[in-house]
């Protein structure tokens, strides 16, 4: 059995992945057409950058078991997300809904869809343009924390806001 991956390490790893993707996107889409090479900046990233969204705003909210209700903590995170998204309107937004593994596969796809939808509705209620947003449910197919107890399950019951 693997030890519990601390949340912060998971976030850091996720941040790295997203940043690499962002750099790759730059190299494909850059106006100059040259090769894009970026150095990873320290701290929370430049204002308006995907890294800033990830580190300073927070890209995910967590849910209780078999619930799609937003906790006060989740609402606070989504408030910050909405503020940021309303300032940087050039990004498209993908909301991924996820469930932990303690449920059946099909129900969890539906539960992930419901969680994603709750987040979309909240962001729209805070002024984010619905036309920027798409959703996707992964059910229990893409856990981020891998172990067999509640410390992981609670991190996997999540909705992730991906700016792209």
């Amino acid at each position, binding site marked *: *059995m*693997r030890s519990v991956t601390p949340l912060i390490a998971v976030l850091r790893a996720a941040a790295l992945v997203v940043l690499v993707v962002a750099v790759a996107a730059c190299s494909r889409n850059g106006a100059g057409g040259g090769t894009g090479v970026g150095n990873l900046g320290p701290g929370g990233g430049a204002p308006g950058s995907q890294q800033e969204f990830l580190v300073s705003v927070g890209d995910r909210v967590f849910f209780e078991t*078999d619930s*799609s209700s937003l906790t006060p903590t989740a609402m606070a995170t989504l408030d910050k997300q909405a503020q940021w998204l309303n300032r940087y309107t050039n990004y498209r937004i993908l909301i991924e809904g996820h469930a932990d*593994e*303690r*449920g*059946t*596969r*099909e*129900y969890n*796809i*539906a*539960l992930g*869809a*419901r969680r*994603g*939808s*709750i987040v979309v*509705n909240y962001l729209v209620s805070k002024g984010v343009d619905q036309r920027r947003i798409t*959703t*996707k*449910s992964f*059910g229990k*197919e*893409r*856990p*981020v924390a*891998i*172990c*067999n107890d509640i410390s992981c399950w609670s991190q996997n019951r999540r909705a992730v806001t991906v700016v792209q």
Partner: protein
Amino acid sequence: MKMTLITRRNALKLGLAGGAFALATPSQALVEIVVTGGNFTPLPIAIPDFASSDPSFGAEIAQIVRDNLKRSGLFVPLDPASLPIRVGDVTNEPDFASWRTASVDALVMGSVERGAEVASQVRVWDTQASAQVVGKSYKTDAQNYRRIAHIVSDAIYASLSGGSGYFDTRILYVAESGPKANRVKRLAIMDQDGFNVQYLSSGKALTLTPRLSPNGASVAYTSYEDGNPQVYVAGLGGASKKLINGAPMSFAPRFAPDGGSVVFSVSNGGTTNIYQAGVGGGNPTQLTSGAAIDTSPCYAPDGSRIVFESDRGGSPQLYIMGAGGGGAQRVSYGEGSYSTPVWSPDGTLIAYTRQSGGQFHIGIMKPDGSGERILSSSGQVQEGPTWAPNSRVIGFFREPGGDAGPSLHSIDIWGRNELNLKTETFASDPSWSPLRA
């Protein structure tokens, strides 16, 4: 996938060659297994190697038969080295006295030859009654010689256990590989005993919950190849086609008993409802409505009703509605939640996943909700029951959690004889085929 089939439909009752021995009247079934509850004793059965011009082939076929019968939990094949004779004889009546002396009540004598096709003859004898229980001959394609052993196994099982067999079947499943956080999942199919594995999809996109059509020739499944989960249908090993267009997400497909349509879930704006659509395309019909999650639909074998799971009352529970939708009645009332209902092929039972007390249970109940019986309980995730075609055995999968992967299991409806079905990869989402044509 091509196969020239000389099928069980062409099975012949073995005639008697020139009156070499008198056919006894049909057995009074002294050796028949009476399966009425969990307390029965498996039947000892003697299966000498099959007579063959290739003795090692005859031994191999007999061993496949022994392994099948042993795995059913209803039979105990005796050590072939301990038997009065080592090779079967289908042309003469057995020396019943010597078999009785060896304490053998049920005796199988077989022969098999392999040429352009594989041909086998088998007689099942009741040594107490000195009577033949069954005598048949079968042929099958030489490319897949193991089938002849499965067909023979089904004949033995059916003649002695009062139910039809389930050995000449296959299991469709999801083969899993790679780390848990980025699992590769592809469709695979194998014989029920784990042989002849074929992989049907590349694994580029997540593929989930494959279900065989009633004739075993097509599959409906959920795939992420479009980004979001969508239902696809395909001939086995053939090209796939998205079932419907325009749904944000569709999943949880199952074929109607006539194979002409599929029932499935659509998620849209956080609500999940059940729809039905023809496999040839056309507009889907919406069968449930409301803000709840309605999913995992499954037809009754006569096509008249659909059982599904819904959290409209709070926790997920099982409901039954007419095949055209509407009038859903709740049928599960136990503690916890109920999911993934699957109607038995004979229509008498519904198998499901139940979560309660921190455990996952595989259970069965009658369609009116009575007679609930939990067959298997685990603290690990286990779910996804599927029925063998004789309505006596259920397959499911269990997932230990962490980075380990799931495995396939089976158990009988009496809660006995849980087996691990060996696969060469991690495996989940089994779908048991009907008896092959």
